[in-house]
């Protein structure tokens, strides 16, 4: 919260729905639709988490990233998924993004909101009976634009420091 300002309920509801629709685009593998939901100046980051003592200065690395992306590099990733040679996603992962605990705070810009959410991701591949599960803390910036909303920043921290998956060929 900035000062005593609160975000009105309609805005919170709209942002929640925006996040749900974003998750739906990912889970339905409509990656071009997903790119459309991202601002052109988006930063998309997944930090490296390190197991540290409780009083350590940081636990999420200030500079090391698993994803360190811009719109340009996210477009490269999506372009790659559209070829026949993205073996990591052939056949594709089946994902389900469960977005919960959405908290919306104002920022010093009227058109932007800081959005905290939990995202639990279920990922199933092929005939493997064991899914990969990712518990993710998101700290997003969501921006109001003329015809709706855009994701202006995603900072998605995976709770595991030693991540239990052979790769991250999905989006968090």
């Amino acid at each position: 919260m900035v000062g005593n300002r609160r975000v009105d309920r309609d805005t919170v509801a709209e942002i929640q729905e925006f996040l749900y629709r974003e998750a739906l685009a990912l889970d339905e593998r409509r990656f071009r639709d997903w790119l459309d939901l991202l601002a052109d100046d988006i930063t998309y980051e997944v930090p490296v988490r390190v197991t540290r003592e409780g009083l350590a200065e940081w636990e999420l690395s200030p500079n090391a990233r698993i994803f360190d992306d811009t719109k340009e590099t996210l477009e490269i990733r999506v372009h790659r998924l559209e070829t026949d040679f993205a073996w990591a996603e052939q056949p594709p992962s089946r994902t389900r993004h469960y977005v919960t605990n959405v908290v919306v705070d104002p920022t010093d810009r009227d058109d932007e909101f800081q959005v905290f959410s939990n995202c639990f991701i279920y990922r199933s591949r092929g005939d493997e009976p064991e899914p990969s599960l990712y518990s993710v803390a998101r700290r997003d910036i969501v921006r109001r634009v003329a015809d709706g909303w855009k994701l202006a920043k995603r900072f998605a921290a995976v709770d595991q420091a030693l991540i239990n998956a052979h790769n991250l060929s999905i989006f968090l």
Partner: protein
Amino acid sequence: MSTRVLDAGTEEYLRKIREGIRQGRFPVRVFNDEAIHEIEQERLFSRAWCLLAHESEIPSPGDYVTRYIGNNNIIVARDEHGVVHANLNMCRHRGNQMCKAEMGNASHFRCSYHGWVYKNSGELVGVPYMKEGYEGRLDRKEWSLVRVRTDSYGGLIFGCLDPQAPSLADYLGDFRFYLDFYLKQSASGVEVYGPPDHWVADTNWKICAENFAGDGYHTPVAHQWGFHLGYFPSSGATHSQGWAVSIPGKGHAIGLGHSPNFPPFGGFPDDLVEQMKQTFTAEQVEVFSKVRTAVATVFPNLSFLMQPLSMTPGEPGVRFVTMRLYHPAGPGRMEMYSWCLVPRDASDEYKTAAYKAYTLAFGQAGTFEQDDFENWIKVTRTAKSTMARDLEFPYIMGMESQRDPDFKGPGHVVRPYVNDTNFRNLWGRWADYLVGEV
């Protein structure tokens, strides 16, 4: 280091594997076999020099990281005088894990069970109830943390559990010529950009070690998307150009990919090229200037890759360097550590660009890494079946090839870059350790 005595049948089996490798055959079984995994722990990882850390991970007094050699968790710490120590992460009193964080800063470690206190060098300095309990019978000097022998090269800190093993310099041998390409790109060397990506995968460390020992063969297929869309500065038609270099009797190997018309030292900023021309020998400059891709394994489980990646198809792009360590976590299971190394003296702009190229291509979400791991877990799983596990793979490319007489670097150098020579050398060395003849 004591090693288990194996039965005659197992010893004979290991010798048969070694003989097969010499003839260009490699057994499928070794990727998932529990006995092989145990023998590797005792005879390979207990005797070879293994990477612990890069010195830039622990730059200040008190800095530490915890890492593995085989199945041993090791504290790697810099003491108050700047000296690096490696010790088994186990209290000598009742065996509790001393340090539970992966990295941090501490002058001392205090056990959370009965409170024994050690300096970060490993020396035991505090024992509760020393007088009342031990009545003067405990000599603190005898109960330091268990020390691991260390040595370093080019900023890499290695550990070795075998006090009788030859020196690190001897172990690396002529491979240092090639390691310099990754470790000495600026006058003051390289540094880690940040802590490594760290993940687990149901695959075997050996598959990764082999791939990075110079598998130019897989690239146009496994990473076809990069060729197809133009982000990878090579083409299927010319991709086999380059050299495969192995160091006989050491197991280390490097693949050096060359693209016609790729500019000398392409993808490096000019100021770094100038520094490299100062730092490297004339022979190193001659060899490295022609290299587009340099992909190497330091036996047994440490690898490097230098590669340009362009965000704009057709352009040389930006060079990045990744260092990776494959921790054998069980038969058919491993932990991956993946770092990005950047030249210490480079501009922040170049470091950031190189890191961005690295994350797009490698690390857990890297577009090249993703496809490699997909292939590697499938190889590992397929290799488990009753039909598969008694089969062998062919390692016969380049059996007769002669050393390239024009190449200025040391080692056994053959062309093309698509070759099994490096792998036979790597697995030959692996088998030497398993039979106990090193």
